[in-house]
């Protein structure tokens, strides 16, 4: 195209020279100007950026990572480039998950695994990320299309499926276990799982997989009335799992009884979802790159701009068997953990020596656990920090409903029962 335009300019020039009548020259000059405009448009048009081998800290406008590497120069992050080694799985590519995926992509994350079974529709356009021309594409494919344009360095894997079904769950677990991206990594094939789904069922499925795999994950959510949200860090055995206690929600302060639900399932706002995605990815970066304090739970009430925090210990009576196994392992590993912590603190004490790095900053080093967070047992509801409420009740031990018949327990034949139901159905 560029070559052809150049030839056209040459042709116009020779035409101008060969014309005996100078009255046509003005219109030829006009034509030439238009061709020149086209040439510059062509030059500035879409061009895919090439992959880069190493993250450079060089401050030039062609370096996509210069501002991120500056975090390292400023001493916020010790080794930013490590981000390229990390794999993050994002479950649910909706209003929160898609934005989280874009943020991690722009940060130069090594690999993203994307899970969703939905398609993009026009009703999603009040949220960020997806574009109207992507309507009817699967969310995972549309996300890969956009993300690979933004940053071709990121390895993207998309899984179009529902993780709550038996088959979907198996595929989910085996994809998390795949270590081909970094074969010598300990544990699973991913460093963190982010749950960005919009329902309890899918969260419980992520919880199940992560408990079984001993996989650290973060949960995120936006309330159905679109005005509050939360993020939560879950480390199997160490913190409460998602099934240890009924899920917490940030109270919006609106009286449930005044909330009109007729004719709608859920509301959504790009702002609340964007804020929650930002909080989630910030916590992810702190967790992966080891800087600042990783929040165990952070709520967001947008009506009052209130951010409750707290941490939750696991429930020794959790209904999830894998959670109990992880809790046991965590207790068994306590002496080793204490010894490692002691050794680390001694090593750091040796390093601090002649002149402390931040002599004027006495609160940057905390030896004792003084996070200032409300710590609580997963089961207790009365000690919940202000502004947090349980979304669901606990399972009753006693029978809530009066029942006319005794519970079903006898050992009948399954085939026989199937036939009985079929007989009723015909």
């Amino acid at each position, binding site marked *: 195209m560029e070559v052809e335009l150049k030839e056209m300019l040459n042709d116009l020039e020779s035409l101008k020279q060969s014309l005996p009548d100078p009255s046509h020259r003005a219109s030829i000059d006009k034509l030439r100007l238009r061709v020149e405009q086209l040439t510059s448009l062509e030059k500035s048009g879409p061009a895919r950026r090439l992959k880069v081998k190493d993250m450079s800290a060089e401050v030039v406008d062609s370096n996509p990572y210069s501002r991120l590497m500056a975090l390292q120069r400023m001493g916020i992050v010790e080794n930013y480039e490590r981000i390229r080694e990390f794999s993050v799985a994002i479950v649910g590519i909706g209003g929160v998950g898609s934005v989280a995926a874009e943020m991690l992509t722009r940060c130069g994350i090594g690999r993203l695994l994307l899970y969703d079974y939905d398609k993009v529709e026009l009703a999603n356009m009040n949220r960020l990320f997806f574009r109207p021309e992507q309507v009817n594409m699967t969310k995972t494919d549309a996300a890969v299309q956009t993300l690979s344009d933004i940053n071709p360095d990121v390895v993207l894997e998309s899984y179009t499926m*529902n993780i709550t079904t038996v088959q979907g769950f198996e595929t989910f677990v085996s994809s998390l276990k795949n270590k081909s991206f970094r074969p010598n990594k300990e544990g699973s094939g991913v460093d963190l799982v982010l749950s960005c789904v919009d329902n309890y*069922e899918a969260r419980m499925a992520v919880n199940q997989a992560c408990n079984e795999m001993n996989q650290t994950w973060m949960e995120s959510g936006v309330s159905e009335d679109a005005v509050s949200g939360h993020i939560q860090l879950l480390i199997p055995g160490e913190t409460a799992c998602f099934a240890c206690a009924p899920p917490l929600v940030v109270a919006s302060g609106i009286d*449930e009884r005044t909330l009109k639900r007729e004719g709608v399932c859920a509301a959504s706002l790009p702002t609340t979802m964007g804020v929650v995605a930002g909080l989630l990815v910030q916590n992810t970066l702190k967790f992966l790159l080891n800087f600042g304090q990783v929040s165990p739970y952070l709520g967001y009430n947008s009506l009052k701009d209130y951010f409750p925090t707290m941490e939750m210990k696991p429930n020794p009576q959790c209904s999830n068997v894998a959670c109990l196994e992880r809790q046991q392992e965590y207790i068994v590993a306590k002496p080793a953990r204490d010894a490692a912590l002691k050794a680390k603190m001694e090593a750091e004490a040796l390093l601090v020596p002649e002149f402390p790095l931040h002599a004027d900053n006495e609160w940057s080093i905390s030896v004792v656990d003084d996070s200032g967070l409300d710590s609580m047992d997963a089961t207790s509801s009365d000690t919940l920090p202000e502004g947090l409420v349980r979304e669901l*009740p606990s399972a009753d031990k006693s*029978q809530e409903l009066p029942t006319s018949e005794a519970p079903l327990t006898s050992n009948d034949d*399954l085939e026989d029962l199937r036939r009985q139901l079929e007989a009723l159905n015909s």
Partner: protein
Amino acid sequence: MEGWDPNTKSTLTQIPLLTTKAGPRDGAAWTQRLKEEYKSLIAYTQMNKSNDNDWFRISASNPEGTRWTGKCWYVHNLLKYEFDLQFDIPVTYPSTAPELELPQLDGKTQKMYRGGKICLTVHFKPLWAKNCPRFGIAHALCLGLAPWLAAEIPILVDSGMIKHKDDATSSTET
């Protein structure tokens, strides 16, 4: 049981409760649970028939009993409206209820998530959570689908979003 109509309440209390807490990945315990599911569904279907309130057909469409398909119907202004019904038993069942789908109504009502999953009332999930593992498929149909059909089908018919099948054929014939 706040927020439920007396009819749903009294029907619910007559559906046999289940005891085994097992999901589709739990091997022999799941088989035991499946037997309880069948018994509970058989009792509920029999009860509906004897009360002249038969309103669904459901059966497992795979040997593992993790996928269920069938039909449900609702009578409005003396006309019967029938729909395909399907759902999967989630891996975290019975901690989480099955998500009931009416694929033919996908996109026709706000009270539905993608894929035709019905949007349950705020009362359903708390009651299900409270009664885990005693509630099964029959309870989900009674507490989830029946009130949904009663609330949404009249609106869908009156607004013209769905047509009776006889209407549809007669209008194409003439």
